[in-house]
């Protein structure tokens, strides 16, 4: 950030030089008297300015003989001093409680935060947050209003989703722009600041790569001239899962199975009779306990920077290592980068940034309703053992009890599932970004940036045999695939800045082009004689013909032309307009481009001459409107009617597998850009010497012509639905962020509260009123639909009205003709509401019942520092959303083969336990209690979480001076993540991802870490 202000002010400083007064001086930190390097000094009302050098000194030729000098520095309070004639200043700057003078990167430029006319959220207090054991995305949770971070469970390989100002398209995604490069990777340790461009006018300049999601702009640490500095952070810790479900023990399992058979009027199975199958009546394993573990997490990050006026360099590397709480799951990465900036000439700068890294890991698909490790740990018989007597993985029964194997379901030992996994999947990337800045003449600069990047992935998996009884696999295989992805991006802009008295103009125009190519292939070989680790090589496979090798080749190109005009008058009125034209190879050539524009304005009332309220440091009103185009959800070649290779046809006496080709899709040549159009009104206010800051926004966003699958009736005969411009989605909401902070002597504190509401609604679905979203649970439950006037991806369910307390009550539930509405229902079954009154319970009775997107999200943070101690705390919550707890449908029922069940089934309805809301235990389910898309599964998923607590201690300078380490700053800290969650949700954790369908999702874990920061 400091570096950025330096950059900008250098540019500004190069403009016009008609000096009168000669000003110089020294800028120091008020409390320590240390010189401040890189502080900005400018003449108020002009763009004339400079920055302080490595000794804190500055020289400035003022434009007039008298005026006001403004001193500013990131996280320090601005100072204004009057000058008359030549003068020498000594300026003491004081830290400000809030980082008010930040420059905010707005895309091909940056602007003073105070001068913004669009809605931009900036992450403050990033230093304290960064020590958290969270991903870069995770850091944002609960910190900015309108930026909704939703964890997709706790798998170390699955990052959180970010939704900015509501969902409006299947391809809502957020664009990360790191140091001006869209899509570049970032190390959390390198982050200097994060701004989120929330409204369309702000994000518009990034254009088509944004989609309707919004932009997160990350500025990393940049090298500073004159000073060599080292920053290091190390933490290590553990993570654990909590609130895990419990399965029935063997005795309970048998009891429930027998009761279920009795209640269904079916014969009991001998397998569940302890006298006939004594082996099955012994509890041997707590499977939940077996699959979970305490995982270790650690991170080491270090960055070095320094240089001279002409060359500055920064190098950083970060290594992360995370063991998941499920056995064998992990994620690890090492990422590094080098930035070098050359000042070739007063008017020519060149920078080169190279990033490289590698990641690998193993995630378990706990979502699978069939073989997910967590659901298998429920299903597995409690009498089964993890290992059999010979030390092999055990199956549903022991090898001497195979005669009863058939009584249990087709379940895979979940410990075996996790432990057998033999995956090697490293991913490597290398990126180079070269950037040239050229001042062509006064006020006109040319910037050219070129990025080239490569990414290679290898995916290897050996699947061993699974001989144990349950769901056996008597065949092993090895599959390998590799994907090579490369892309380049070229961006060229011309910027002209001109100041005429109180009028400030900035004109920017540019052109960008990008190209991506993906190539890859895959193969699978079967039949390995030996499963020794050293023998798991393709050469030992005996069957090479069973699976055909595959090849992938994809290309994507896009171009954009864009321009922006900004005008500011006397630091009071600000106006910005932008236009762009985007074209993409994803669309048919005749309509592959779209035009999008944006305009925004702000009125800084606090700068008006008439405004003279001492307590108010800043008062600004903002308004903006803008459009962004999006084709992210469109596949490449959408306009081609392709033939797909079919699954293989077996014909002939020798049963040859033949290739077939069938029409894949009906192309849509008319497909055009989805447009997200957003209007924003906001105001910013700072009070009491900027101690209190307040930002409020109201937005309304329409995603027009959103792109999704068109209906694909079976009679089309094509497997792949075409994409079409379907309809419109509206999002609107309020956002508020308030923070207050101050320093009193040794005591510094800061508290912040933020909250955001979101009202989301599909306003148009083209020809239909309803659209099924392709998410199902075991192909039985399909709860999610889009409906007109309903939230995006809503739950569409049949309403229940409790449980029938008697057969009589069930029989008395009749339609107007006296016919039973639920003819198969008995006491203990769910009562479904016949909404349309036709006397039958079917899909026609469904109602929309909300969605998984919160109506409100909020956060609260506090930071306290006293002498060497610091304390930070973050609470975060979401409210007004639902989760479809499909886990209940598979774990609270005794009608699913020989699966074990969740302990809560013991509380199911019975004539002696009539208060329960769990339907009766039965081996059959004629009332479809567990197979009906009903609101019985639906739960309120609101929660409040103590996301993080961090306590730190910085060793006093005096102590370090004694060991001759006077420049070293050493801080120790301890941090706890997800310590406490308050929720009524009955599953493991309310953050389940997947549009709110939970089938025992990998839970969000608690983390405890201890770490140290070193700076010198």
């Amino acid at each position, binding site marked *: 950030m400091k570096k950025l202000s330096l950059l900008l002010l250098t540019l500004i400083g190069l403009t016009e030089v008609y000096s009168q007064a000669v000003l110089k001086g020294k800028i120091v930190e008020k409390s320590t008297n240390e010189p401040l390097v890189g502080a900005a000094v400018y003449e108020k009302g002009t763009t004339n300015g400079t920055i302080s050098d490595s000794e804190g000194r500055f020289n400035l030729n003022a434009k007039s003989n008298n005026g006001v000098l403004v001193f500013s520095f990131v996280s320090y309070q601005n100072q204004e001093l009057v000058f008359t004639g030549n003068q020498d200043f000594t300026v003491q700057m004081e830290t400000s409680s809030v980082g008010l003078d930040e420059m905010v990167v707005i895309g091909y430029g940056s602007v003073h935060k105070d001068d913004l006319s669009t809605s931009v959220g900036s992450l403050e207090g990033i230093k304290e947050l960064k020590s958290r054991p969270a991903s870069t995305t995770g850091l944002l949770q609960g910190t900015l209003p309108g930026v909704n971070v939703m964890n997709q469970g706790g798998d170390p390989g699955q990052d959180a989703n970010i939704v900015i100002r509501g969902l409006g398209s299947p391809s809502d995604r957020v664009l990360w722009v790191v140091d001006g490069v869209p899509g570049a990777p970032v190390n959390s340790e390198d982050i200097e600041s994060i701004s989120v461009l929330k409204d369309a006018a702000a994000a518009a300049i990034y254009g088509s790569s944004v989609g309707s999601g919004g932009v997160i702009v990350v500025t990393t640490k940049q090298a500073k001239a004159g000073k060599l500095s080292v920053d290091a952070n190390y933490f290590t810790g553990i993570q654990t899962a909590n609130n895990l479900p419990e399965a029935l023990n063997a005795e309970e399992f048998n009891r429930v199975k027998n009761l279920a058979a009795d209640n269904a009027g079916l014969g009991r199975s001998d397998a569940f009779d302890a006298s006939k199958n004594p082996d099955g009546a012994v509890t041997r394993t707590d499977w939940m306990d077996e699959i979970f573990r305490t995982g270790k997490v650690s991170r080491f990050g270090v960055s070095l920077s320094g240089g001279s006026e002409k060359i500055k360099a920064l190098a950083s590397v970060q290594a992360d290592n995370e063991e998941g709480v499920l056995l064998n799951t992990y994620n690890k990465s090492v990422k590094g980068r080098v930035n070098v900036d050359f000042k070739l*000439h007063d008017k020519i700068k060149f920078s080169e940034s190279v990033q490289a890294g590698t990641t690998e890991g193993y995630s378990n698909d706990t979502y699978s309703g069939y073989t997910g490790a967590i659901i298998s740990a429920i299903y597995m018989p409690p009498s089964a053992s993890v290992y059999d007597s010979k030390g092999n993985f055990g199956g549903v029964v022991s090898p001497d009890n195979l005669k009863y194997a058939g009584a249990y379901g087709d379940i895979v030992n979940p410990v075996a599932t996790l432990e057998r996994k033999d995956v090697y999947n490293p991913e490597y990337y290398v990126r180079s970004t070269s950037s040239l800045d*050229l001042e062509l003449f006064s006020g006109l600069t040319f910037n050219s940036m070129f990025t080239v990047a490569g990414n290679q992935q290898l995916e290897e998996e050996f699947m061993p045999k699974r001989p144990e009884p349950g769901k056996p696999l008597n065949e092993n295989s090895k599959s390998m695939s590799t994907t090579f992805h490369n892309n380049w991006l070229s961006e060229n802009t011309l910027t002209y800045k001109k100041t005429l008295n109180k009028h400030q103009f900035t004109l920017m125009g540019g052109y960008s082009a990008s190209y991506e190519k993906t190539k890859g292939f895959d193969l699978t070989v079967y039949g390995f004689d030996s499963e020794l680790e050293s023998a798991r090589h393709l050469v030992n496979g005996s069957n090479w013909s069973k699976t055909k090798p595959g090849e992938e080749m994809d290309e994507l190109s896009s171009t954009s032309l864009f321009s922006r005009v900004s005008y500011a008058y006397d630091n009071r009125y600000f106006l910005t307009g932008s236009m762009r034209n985007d074209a993409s190879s994803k669309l048919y050539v005749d309509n592959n481009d779209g035009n999008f524009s944006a305009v925004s304005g702000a009125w800084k009332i606090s700068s008006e001459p008439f405004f003279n309220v001492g307590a108010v440091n800043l008062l600004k009103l903002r308004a903006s409107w803008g459009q962004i185009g999006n084709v992210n959800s469109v596949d490449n070649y959408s306009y081609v009617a392709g*033939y797909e290779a079919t*699954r293989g046809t077996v*014909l002939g006496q020798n049963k040859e597998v033949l290739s077939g080709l*069938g*029409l894949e899709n009906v192309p849509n040549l008319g497909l055009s850009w989805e447009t997200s159009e957003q209007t924003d009104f906001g105001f910013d206010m700072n009070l009491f010497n900027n101690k209190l800051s307040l930002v409020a926004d109201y937005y309304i966003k329409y995603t027009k012509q959103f792109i999704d699958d068109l209906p694909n009736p079976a009679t089309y005969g094509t497997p792949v639905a075409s994409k079409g411009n379907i309809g419109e989605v509206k999002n609107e909401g309020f956002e508020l962020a308030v923070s207050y902070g101050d320093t009193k002597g040794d005591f510094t504190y800061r508290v912040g509260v933020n909250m955001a509401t979101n009202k989301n609604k599909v306003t148009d679905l083209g020809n239909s009123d309803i659209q099924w979203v392709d998410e199902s649970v075991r192909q*039985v439950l399909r709860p999610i639909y889009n409906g007109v006037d309903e939230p995006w991806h809503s739950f569409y369910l049949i309403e229940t009205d409790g449980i029938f307390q008697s057969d009589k009550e069930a029989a008395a539930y009749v339609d107007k003709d006296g016919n039973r509405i639920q003819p198969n229902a008995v006491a203990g079954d769910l009562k479904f509401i016949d909404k349309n009154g036709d006397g039958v319970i079917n899909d026609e009775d469904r109602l929309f019942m909300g969605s998984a997107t919160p109506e409100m999200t909020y956060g609260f943070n506090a930071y306290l520092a006293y002498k060497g101690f610091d304390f930070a705390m973050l609470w975060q919550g979401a409210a007004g959303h639902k989760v479809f707890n499909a886990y209940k449908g598979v774990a609270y029922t005794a009608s699913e083969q020989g699966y074990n069940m969740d302990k809560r089934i013991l509380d199911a309805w019975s004539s002696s336990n009539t208060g329960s809301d769990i339907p009766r235990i039965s081996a059959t389910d004629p009332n*479809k209690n567990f197979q009906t898309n009903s609101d019985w599964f639906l739960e309120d998923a609101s929660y409040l979480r103590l996301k993080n607590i961090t306590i730190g201690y910085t060793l006093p300078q005096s102590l370090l001076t004694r060991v001759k380490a006077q420049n070293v700053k050493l801080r120790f800290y301890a941090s706890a993540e997800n310590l406490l969650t308050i929720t009524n949700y009955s599953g493991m954790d309310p953050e389940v991802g997947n549009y709110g369908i939970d089938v025992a999702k990998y839970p969000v874990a608690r983390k405890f870490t201890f770490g140290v920061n070193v700076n010198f």
Partner: protein
Amino acid sequence: MKLKLYQLLLILIPALGFVACSDDFLENEKFGAPSTENFWQTEGDAMAAVNALYTYFSEDDIVGRGFMWYVCAGDDMVVGRDKAQSVNMKNFIDDGSNGYTAKNWRYMYRIIGRANDIIVNVPSMSIDKDLKDFILGQAYFLRGWAYLWLAPRYGDDRAGIPIVKEGTALSELDVPRAKNVSENYKQCVSDFDKAAKLLPYFDELPADDYGRAHKTACWAYAAKAHLYNAEYDATSYAKVVEYADKVITSGKHGLLDNYTDVFKVENNWSKEYIWSFVSSSDKGCITPSVFLENKGWGKYNGWGYWHATNELYEAYEEGDPRREATILKFGDEFQYFGETMRYYSSNNRTGMQFRKFMDPFTSKDPVADGTINANGDYPATDLNMPLIRYAEVLLFKAEALIMQGKSGDGPLNEVRHRAGLDPLTGATMDDLKHERRVELAAEWSDRHQDLVRWHDAQATYSKPLHGRIHSNLLEPDSPYEIKEVWPARKFDPVVNHVWPIPPQEIEQSEVLVQNKGY
């Protein structure tokens, strides 16, 4: 280093040219599988297109379980494992949405769409005339076959299923249901007629083409379509006889001497074969493994889903060898993984397993021998699953004759003769129904569909089903009692005459309507 401004500009100008805008840059050619732009050129293209018509014959949702769940709704078997969805299908409280059966609808229309694509594009291709006929013949046959797979299950006199004509414009492609199912049968017969003209006899096919459509299969299916249509229009019976006779008089088919041999892998292509799902252990039908003992006594992943009822066992005449060939009861000897075993089961609901399709499991190491798949999640076998055997063609003819008031004794007794049973004279519909049941038990000929079209379903299903409950389930010789294993069911002939169309298909379409009562 001192760079002059103009030197830098010289570097920059080519850089700008590099990214200059052009439409070519935004048009990328698709690599890989062909598109309509370059398809339908070569014989290979036409062959690949026709191969795609058979691809679902190895898809579990069609040939594995799929509609076998609806066959299970009959009185010959019960659902062997607690599984709410399966139980509900058997009890006629299914809504059609379940993943087991729902895909038939979509996949059949995909076959129809692909056949239409061939029928539109192949005639104008410049390829060998005989090959062209062979390809078009297969396309017509499989189009008709796909309609016939769906039509009786979803369509009746109140509404048929959508008929998608070749060359239908995209805007018309969301086709409404046909007026009634007779329209569908008419369409099927017309396709089978066209196909029969274009296709060779089975014995004229090279061995590599076994499993492809052939002339007598077309006639046999035309007979079947007419037989189903005869439920609504008795004049169709004469047509059944006409088409069955075409098959019979072709002299290309006959019954094997021994009933048990019909279901052996070595007889996949015997003279009794007319049309089967071609199956290999790599890709094919898992049905034999789904019938197999749950977990296969620890040796193989049998799924144990369908168990034979005592009603079926007792339907056989004393001394009918087809009974022991079809059903395995406690104490019966059988070959399994190279061993002689005596049947017992700790989990079989009726105490009886279907034996018909166990040939792939007899050798010592069937995985190594290639008769079964090593993957227990996809336990396909090398046994082709018969769809229409010559014996059924004889029974088509016998039924049609009896229903016309003529004597069906000839073809009926031919079937009985092979079973070593005495011939009947003046056979009635009851005799015919009995013969169809015992000859074709657990096959795709679909006992449930027969009971429905004979209007016997309601009466049959109002009786409970029974099994043999042995005192010691682990002891092949233990005594048993006959007990009810499946309670009586409620079958409403007005509603359950057809199955519910998968509701997800109704949601995808603007014109498709559900069967009444669902």
